[in-house]
């Protein structure tokens, strides 16, 4: 690995170690550490926690674009200093929480955030900020952009971020390739490849460790071969499930294609253990065009799903729990999405996903 360094500078030994968070804790957090009793939400975007001693703290939460210019970060810091108490924290979904010790500070802080363009919300049964990935901005294998998809989606859903009108929390994610760094979510927007990789045989032998690539394929569709006298690889296109797993270790196996890259939508993923066990998200729409810069077709489907859930879900039912109650036929009806053979699981062990019962929804 090349170690870039200016020739002149003496070699600096890094100080290895994980920074302690104690000094970054808001004083109320530090004082009541491990001693909280309950909380409520006086309004969307505000959490009010009460400790066993009666101590209180309000946390005001706003959304961000995650990929922030330093001006935006400084802007947040300025607000924390002027209207908050100089502390802030980030959530797992790139929201910011500003803790304050008195209720009086809540309203002015909200006003200041909104004035500066930071939407306040994302708590309780609202729609969360989208779990974000890299996309064209930085990744070396992306099929779409992430920041762009997220921006256009949150523009459309900002009202649902600002209000708590859903049956339960709604967690969204997007992923710019099938690897799915964005994770399992109530609604996940993920690239779906629809063609086997196109192989640039001239480059394979130079760039790819062939056994490594062969081993990566989940369906053993890749075979070593010789093309024009050079070692290369070939793909059994009947077996290939177009997953793109061969592309990272072997970029000459180009999986991305402007037109064949489609967007799929998955629903009902759930990570928490509340009520039902955690479960993966399920395929409900595919073939949507990768329509930069604003992906209107994708946003329309996401909205349709959300609105059906909002109208029909009962309190505390997460997306997947709602569907389990009303059934998949009703889900596809209410969202006006086609159910296709591609949704019938044929992966290993997929039999458990077939209906081996007369539990039917009509």
């Amino acid at each position: 690995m090349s170690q870039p360094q200016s020739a002149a500078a003496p070699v600096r030994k890094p100080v290895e170690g994980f920074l302690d968070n104690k000094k970054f804790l808001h004083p109320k957090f530090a004082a009541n550490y491990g001693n909280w009793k309950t909380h409520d939400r006086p309004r969307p975007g505000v959490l009010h926690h009460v400790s066993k001693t009666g101590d209180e703290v309000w946390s005001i939460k706003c959304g961000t674009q995650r990929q922030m210019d330093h001006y935006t970060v400084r802007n947040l810091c300025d607000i924390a200093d002027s209207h908050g108490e100089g502390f802030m924290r980030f959530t797992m979904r790139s929201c910011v929480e500003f803790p304050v010790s008195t209720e009086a500070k809540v309203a002015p802080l909200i006003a200041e955030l909104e004035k500066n363009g930071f939407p306040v919300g994302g708590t309780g049964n609202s729609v969360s900020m989208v779990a974000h990935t890299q996309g064209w901005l930085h990744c070396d294998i992306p099929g779409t952009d992430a920041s762009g998809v997220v921006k256009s989606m949150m523009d459309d859903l900002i009202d649902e971020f600002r209000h708590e009108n859903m049956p339960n929390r709604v967690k969204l994610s997007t992923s710019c390739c099938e690897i799915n760094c964005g994770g399992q979510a109530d609604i996940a927007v993920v690239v779906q490849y629809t063609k086997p990789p196109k192989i640039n045989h001239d480059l394979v032998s130079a760039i790819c460790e062939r056994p490594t690539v062969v081993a990566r394929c989940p369906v053993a569709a890749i075979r070593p071969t010789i093309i024009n006298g050079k070692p290369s690889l070939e793909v059994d296109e009947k077996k290939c499930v177009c997953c793109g797993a061969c592309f990272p270790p072997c970029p000459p196996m180009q999986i991305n294609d402007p037109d064949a890259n489609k967007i799929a939508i998955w629903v009902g993923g759930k990570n928490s253990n509340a009520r039902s066990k955690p479960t993966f998200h399920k395929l409900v729409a595919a073939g949507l065009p990768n329509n930069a810069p604003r992906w209107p077709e994708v946003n329309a489907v996401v909205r349709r799903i959300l609105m059906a859930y909002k109208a029909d879900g009962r309190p505390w039912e997460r997306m997947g729990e709602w569907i389990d109650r009303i059934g998949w036929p009703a889900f596809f009806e209410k969202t006006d999405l086609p159910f296709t053979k591609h949704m019938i699981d044929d992966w290993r062990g997929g039999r458990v996903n077939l209906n081996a019962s007369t539990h039917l929804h009509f």
Partner: protein
Amino acid sequence: MVKPMHPTPMLDELEKGPWPSFVTGIKRLAKDNNMAVDLLGQLEHSYETRMGHWKGGTLGVIGYGGGIIPRFSEIKNPDGGYRFPDAGEFHTLRIMPAAGMHYDTNTLRQLCDVWVKHGSGLIALHGQSGDIMFQGADSASVQKAFDEFNEMGFDLGGAGPALRTSASCIGAARCEQSCFDEAKVHHLVINEFLDELHRPALPYKFKFKFSGCPNDCTNSIQRSDFATIGTWRDNIQTDDAMGQTWFAKHGVNELVNDVIGMCPTRALQLKATKDVKKSAEISSLTLDGSQSLEIDNKSCVRCMHCVNVMTGALAPGKDKGVCILIGGKSVLKIGASMGTVVVPFMKLDSDEDYENYLDLCHRVMDFFADNALEHERTGEMIDRIGLASFLEGIEVDVDANMINRPRMNPYVNMADWPVAAA
């Protein structure tokens, strides 16, 4: 002239205790029946050695390729002769009872008479597939016994790689939950496929079973390749008078804990009668002056639970029909597998409905015959080729009721999505 009994100290232990004893029964037979005497000898030997001692063979009746389970004793004397010669051949005839296993006493006695004449007198009522098993004929008697049973109107059941004897629940004959005429369909199907039943030519066994409702009293989902189960599409029917009687007897706690709380999909809710939703999809049962049980029929999965507990007060809807599940079987090769939904709903009232149904049966059986590997059951075949391909093969459209949930992995080539989604 009956030969002397073999000592059976171990079997004698099974004469003790209150449950009817098969050993006592065989001993009763042995009083005038050498086959029964030697059967006891052979069986005692198994108890001693803790090993089975029968081997199979091939044996049939004229015109048929299956239906007899031949058994030859492997317990031999040094000279190669049977050690228990009168039970050296101990074949079973599988005979199909009428649907629902109904009998009048005359018929039963007549069956006994034939079996005393040509066989051991030992009868299993019934085998797990639903046959009367006449157990214990020697090779020479098989045809004679069959001929007499057949004269009475009974036909041989299935064995080998063939259509098998089927079973249907008592259903319409005595059960308020019945959603179709089980016996009629059972009857139709067997008569339609007599050739497949009697002349084994399928890749492996194939079983139908018929249950009148989702209680599935024939275990059809797990124990048949082709399960036909009654259900309904419209709202659960309610009878307020019976509802009030039930409620008066059982009270609100039982209603909440045993009925509402056990509905798998929270389709039941307790409501003030005035708050019951007015909608085509809601049915409701008044419980007393002020309260009602509200049923959201769109959330209901027709599991039967509330209908079972409150029978009479609640009942299946009026728009009845059947659901078909394919692929149930036992443990071999891929592990036990259950049938999965292939037709979520099909009417079975008119002649046309029955034709449609039989037509589907043919398509399934044909596809199985053409595409299953040797000794491969429908469930294994579907597992191998995928449900979607199977559906295509039998010309049935995909339906979201066929799945518990859509796929959770992206491992699928969706190049033909536009066609599939059109």
